[in-house]
């Protein structure tokens, strides 16, 4: 921001330079002291001067004189000389003679007296400059008191000239001075109207009748054609300072829409110079007129916030996507132009407004930070920013429904395992947030499984019974183990969710793999009817078919079953008629029959791999869907493929056509080398968060997106105007591969750094107890590289100077949301720099 300020400060100093170069008599002293004769004889026609008559040194007028003297420099910029006239003792003339005249200052133009000011109207430089200019610019600045006067002026101006309407709560204020100074420069261009009546402000339709603050509105009367309609108004958003008024008027004076025919990178308008973004409406010959109307419409809405340019693509060779219709150029140095596809003019406005709000907020924050730095530092660090810990502690007063779950102790643990066929044990620590979160899901599981025979749900609090947990080799919390008749334990290694855990427990009840004795059983198994415990349970069934001789493959399959137990049901058939069974599915033993969703389709797969490990890997791969709906629960399985994702985002189910086309596309996935999937925002609402990250707003759905998750992180989206068909998508993918498409965004590469600094106790100890010989002198000498302040890269933030650290940190966390979770690249970079500078 400071860069922009510099820019318009410099352009403003140019203005001041013009103002001050109004020829003046090169007086060496700003406040001249003259005798009455010298003064009156030296008055030139058209030259204004402010005179103060002083009999001798009068002590009472001293402060007033001081202010006059101070204002001499400011007034000189406007060609007004300030003179102190020393009255001789004997003088009894008009100005020197009268006692009360000595309490006044006189403004002359030439030798004509314009105004006489009582000294109490000239209390400081602002009031002197404001009042003097107000008097001199009597014609340029109309003072109005009633609405009727204002409307008269406005009507008179329509079609001819624009009006600057200013409200100041009182004259002689800094705001008043700013308006007058602006009027001095712009008075000939625009009609200035000033009021101190707040009622006028209310009647101008300003919704903010805050009468204590001055306001300025630019009324576009020159364009007004309809006499019945009031002129369009653009209020100035910032405080009334000369710089801001200048900036506002410059913006109002700029063309509404700039038509450009060159590379946008080279375009520069007054907006960019003043630190505002420039929006390009990309147009083509065919639609130019319509686009110009759009541009003007947008420009009106963005007046004072951003510039609008109309760029004809026919004239410029743009290396951007054809469907891009808007470009945004920011005033920041080195930021490339962003090309966007927006559907609505509102989107353009939103884009700009949100951006300016962020800036505003950041600025505000910076201000605040400087004021209450220490306070904030304390506040942040001890506020919980771990969502799990916070959620659990907010829930701690609720009593958990744990009646269904048996609490085991060191004494009851072993006997409990022997009592039931399957004992599920949750090992947790009552102080540990993640295990308490899992305990809540576990309670839901217990509720689901209420009344299921042969399964006991139990828990061991390792904080109470560390001996059991150590003996059972529980090294982290939480851990769930399923004990079979008190012996072999299977460790649960799935998602810590109610559904997943319930399913795991249910599937674990059946041995894995399950030996099937007859052909009927095998068929029933594939249909999902056998074993009956699982018939009501939706699952995928795997059947290994072996001939009697294939003991090696069978053993490997059994071993694989141990690994996959709970995640899938596995059956095994090796009776004499195994060959017949496998033939039915066009394979020969050893083979795998895969029945998805209740046996509606059975797939035969030849088992070529012999080792259990390979078999596990193969089965896991086969369990993946061809065109899955991606969910929070199943994503990791697909991520393991380490391939780019082609995701169809959809708000609800996807359409029949799209589904079929995508399936076609996905079936060729072996060649394509990507994961084709879809995401249902209704079921996985966090998908919205993904879209917002990719495209700033949630675009219209369905939307096909390509994400290079594992390489580079670029995100592309399929042109929404094209229909999603296999061929369209394939040719788009070709273009992607050829590098012809520009990514919509790129995934952040940011590392996960500490969200906030720690308390630097080492430093506190040294500060508080300086005599503490922590830093022995020869340690300085011996190994200076170990001194924290010099550590290269400063990779432990603990050693940072706290003030710097917190500053960087605060800039990086405008939200108290996750305190640094959301990627904030710019600020992180800044922090990184700080580190290396140390």
């Amino acid at each position: 921001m400071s860069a922009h300020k510099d820019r318009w400060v410099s352009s403003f100093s140019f203005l001041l330079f013009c103002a001050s170069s109004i020829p003046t008599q090169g007086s060496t002293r700003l406040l001249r002291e003259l005798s009455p004769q010298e003064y009156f004889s030296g008055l030139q026609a058209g030259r204004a001067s402010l005179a103060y008559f002083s009999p001798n040194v009068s002590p009472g007028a001293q402060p007033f004189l001081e202010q006059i003297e101070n204002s001499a420099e400011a007034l000189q910029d406007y060609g007004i000389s300030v003179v102190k006239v020393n009255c001789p003792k004997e003088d009894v003339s008009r100005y020197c003679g009268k006692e009360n005249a000595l309490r006044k200052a006189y403004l002359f133009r030439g030798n004509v007296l314009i105004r006489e000011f009582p000294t109490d109207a000239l209390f400081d430089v602002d009031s002197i400059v404001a009042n003097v200019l107000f008097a001199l610019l009597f014609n340029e600045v109309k003072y109005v008191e009633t609405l009727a006067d204002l409307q008269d002026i406005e009507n008179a101006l329509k079609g001819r000239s624009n009006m600057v309407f200013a409200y100041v709560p009182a004259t002689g204020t800094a705001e008043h001075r700013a308006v007058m100074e602006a009027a001095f420069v712009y008075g000939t261009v625009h009609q200035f109207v000033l009021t101190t009546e707040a009622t006028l402000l209310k009647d101008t339709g300003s919704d903010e009748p805050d009468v204590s603050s001055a306001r300025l509105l630019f009324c576009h009367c020159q364009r007004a054609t309809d006499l019945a309609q009031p002129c369009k108004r653009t209020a100035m958003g910032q405080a009334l300072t000369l710089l801001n008024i200048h900036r506002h008027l410059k913006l109002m004076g700029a063309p509404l829409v700039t038509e450009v025919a060159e590379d946008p990178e080279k375009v520069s308008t007054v907006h960019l110079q003043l630190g505002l973004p420039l929006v390009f409406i990309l147009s083509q010959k065919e639609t130019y007129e319509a686009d110009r109307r759009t541009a003007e419409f947008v420009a009106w809405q963005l007046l004072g916030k951003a510039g609008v340019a109309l760029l004809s693509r026919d004239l410029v060779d743009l290396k951007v996507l054809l469907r891009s219709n808007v470009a945004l150029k920011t005033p920041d140095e080195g930021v490339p132009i962003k090309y966007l596809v927006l559907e609505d003019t509102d989107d353009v406005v939103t884009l700009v407004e949100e951006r300016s709000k962020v800036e505003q907020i950041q600025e505000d924050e910076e201000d605040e930070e400087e004021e209450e730095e220490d306070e904030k530092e304390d506040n942040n660090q001890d506020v919980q920013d771990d969502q799990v810990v916070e959620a659990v502690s907010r829930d701690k007063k609720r009593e958990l429904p744990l009646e269904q779950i048996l609490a085991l102790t060191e004494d009851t643990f072993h006997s409990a395992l022997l009592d039931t066929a399957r004992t599920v044990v949750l090992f947790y620590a009552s102080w540990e947030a993640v295990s308490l979160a899992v305990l809540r899901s576990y309670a839901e599981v217990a509720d689901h499984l209420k009344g299921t025979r042969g399964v006991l749900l139990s828990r061991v609090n390792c904080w109470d019974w560390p001996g059991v947990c150590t003996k059972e080799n529980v090294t982290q919390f939480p851990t769930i183990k399923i004990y079979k008749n008190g012996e072999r334990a299977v460790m649960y290694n799935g998602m810590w969710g109610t559904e997943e855990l319930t399913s795991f427990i249910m599937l674990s009840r059946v041995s894995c793999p399950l030996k099937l004795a007859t052909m009927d059983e095998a068929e029933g198994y594939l249909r999902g009817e056998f074993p009956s415990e699982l018939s009501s349970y939706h699952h995928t069934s795997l059947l290994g078919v072996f001939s009697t001789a294939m003991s090696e493959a069978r053993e490997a399959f059994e071993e694989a079953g141990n690994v996959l137990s709970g995640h899938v049901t596995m059956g095994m058939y090796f009776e004499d008629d195994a060959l017949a069974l496998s033939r039915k599915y066009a394979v020969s033993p050893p083979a795998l029959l895969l029945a998805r969703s209740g046996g509606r389709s059975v797939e035969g797969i030849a088992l070529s791999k012999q080792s259990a490990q390979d078999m596990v890997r193969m089965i896991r791969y086969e369990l993946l869907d061809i065109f899955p709906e991606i969910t929070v629960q199943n994503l990791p399985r697909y991520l393991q493929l380490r391939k780019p994702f082609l995701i169809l985002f959809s708000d609800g189910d996807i359409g029949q056509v799209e589904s079929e086309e995508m399936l076609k596309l996905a079936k060729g996935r072996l060649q394509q080398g990507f994961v084709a999937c879809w995401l249902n925002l209704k079921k996985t609402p966090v998908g919205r968060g993904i879209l917002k990250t990719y495209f700033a707003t949630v675009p219209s759905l369905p939307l096909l997106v390509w994400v290079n998750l594992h390489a580079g992180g670029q995100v592309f989206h399929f042109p929404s105007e094209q229909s999603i068909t296999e061929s369209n998508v394939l040719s788009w993918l070709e273009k992607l591969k050829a590098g012809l498409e520009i990514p919509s965004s790129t995934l952040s590469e940011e590392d996960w750094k500490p969200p906030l600094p720690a308390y630097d106790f080492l430093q506190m100890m040294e500060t508080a107890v300086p005599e503490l010989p922590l830093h022995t002198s020869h340690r300085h000498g011996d190994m200076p590289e170990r001194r924290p302040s010099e550590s290269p890269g400063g990779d432990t933030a603990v050693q940072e100077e706290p003030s710097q650290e917190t500053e960087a940190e605060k800039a990086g966390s405008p939200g108290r949301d996750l305190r640094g979770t959301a990627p904030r690249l710019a600020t992180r970079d800044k922090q990184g720099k700080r580190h290396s500078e140390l």
Partner: protein
Amino acid sequence: LGLALYAGSLCAASGAAFLYHDYCIIGAGPSGLQAAYFLQRAGRDYVVFERSHAPGSFFALYPRHRKLISINKQYTGKSNSEFNLRHDWNSLLSHDRRLLFRRYSRDFFPNADAMVRYLEDFASLLKLRVQYNTAIIHVTLERDRQAWNSHYFLLTDQDRQNYKCSSLLVATGTWVANVVNFPGSEYVEGYETVSINPEDFAGQTVLILGRGNSAFETAENILGVTNFIHMVSRSRVRLSWATHYVGDLRAINNGLLDTYQLKSLDGLLEGNLEDLAIVKDKKGKLHITLRFYLENRNTSAGIDSITLPQDELDNFATRAPYDRVIRCLGWKFDFSIYNSSLRMMPGKGDKKKYPQIKPSYESRGTRGLFVLGTASHSVDFRKSAGGFIHGFRYTTRAVHRLLENRHHGVPWPSTVYPITQLTNSIIKRVNEASGLYQMFSVLADIILLRENATAFEYLEEYPVGVLAELEMQTGRKAPNGLFVVLMEYGRNFSGADKDVFYYNRAVGEAQHAWQSNFLHPVIYFYKRLPTEREMRLRPPDWPLPRPDAIHHILEDFLTDWTAPNAHILPLRRFLENCLSTDLRNFFAEYCFLFAFTRQKLPPFCRQGYMRMQGLVGSEGLRRHAVEAGLMEDYTRTDFLGNRPPDSHEGSQDQLLRDHAILVRPLQHLVNAKDE
């Protein structure tokens, strides 16, 4: 050299008579049995020599008044067996739950007979190999390059039976009574033999020399029947509740302080015992005078010629004659049995009653000789609990672990955890670990970081004094930095003259945790292992050299360091900043979001969610997280439009976050370009 040759020839002469063991332990007291237990569990070849017919012979006699001052807490309100050991100062460590001291006595301060019974059971139930009635009267060395330590230890018992050992563990305790010699010291009765029957003191005036627990215990016993009791010693009284050292005067023995301060005739005096002299008059009364007067007088001139202080100073404090003088001056180590080649040297200053040893408990003079138990207290004398059962049971285990690594290639036990468990591991240990708690500032848990800080290795209760030798002593490697977890009292809190009850003595806010006074966990972070030189040059009163970062976990009234915000959160921030990573937990939904929007994932998602162990979380919990403003509720579809201004307290933040998200795509491009 002559001696060594002599010793060598001696053993050559009677070589066949040697009985060999890898480990010899002298003494079947608590520390000897404790060492035997660990050696037995490890299947080592060892023997314990005990001069008495039963273990714990010291406890059979002492304390004379039979009241142990180690607490035996029956109830703590907790079932955690490790935690409960913090308040059980008498049990030894074993896997056998029958061998918990509270099964032997219900008294808070148990009778010493219970200890004798306990030690007998400990030795017999665990079938420890103790050779009773064997008093080792001489220990010498036999040089041999083949031996573990280039020499064997040759032990001789009272029957001239010889034993040969590779490693010698000295667990003899301190049992030789301290005696002072001054003119008239023959009239002084010793603590060892003085009557414990109060009747014997009825109507007597008693002077007690010494100011330790045995002196006060003796006084306590006769306080009610004597005329008055005076106590003399060189130093001022040190109250254990002010010094936080369990060896100083315990409140249970300090009845005499009460009667002194309330002017009920009893009293305390300071003076150097070496300057005293006692003169017995004709009536058998004992008069205190100064050695100075005795030296100046002519010999054998009789009692009447002796100047008494009150002759010159008529208000001299101990001018009243005493009926009895009792010496209660404590014990020292028996140095007499060691051949000088072993260079068993007494410590310096107030540690002269203990042999000189390294912080690894190995003798400074002889490699392979370790001192265990009370005799090893020089490491932490007047600081921690290494001289007492509840302390040395842990240091003995530490010595055993050092030996396992040194002689049997068994590295120090450790567990490897993923980095996400770092905060948890520390919190678990500081809340339940008993060794860290009893042996504060002496034993420390060590966390060795693995490369890239994705995992760590946890070592329990390592002697912090030999931190520099960690890699050699444990067989574990520490190339990527380490944390040292120990417990400390506030640096300026303890002391005989300190007011430990001043207002605001306890700190309540995490940001001031470094000023905590009561015992609290402290974590030191080093980017690399400190060197021996750094260890030597560490600031006085610091257990360790200057770390790269330090964290104090706020002291807690209940010693329960599990408060999410006051204890765990600041610890997490400390660890995060040391490791330069983000150790927060996330629900699976957020890991999912990060997987699609970030190229890198936080450790919790990487090690959990990505391995199919995501924390799905219940609906209620997610709602809490949303309410806390720590999660976005994506089920709300209106989040781009104008949200109602109220929503909840975090609405402002929500708004900010939305903006932040909106500008992000631009920033991505910026980033990509810059790189």
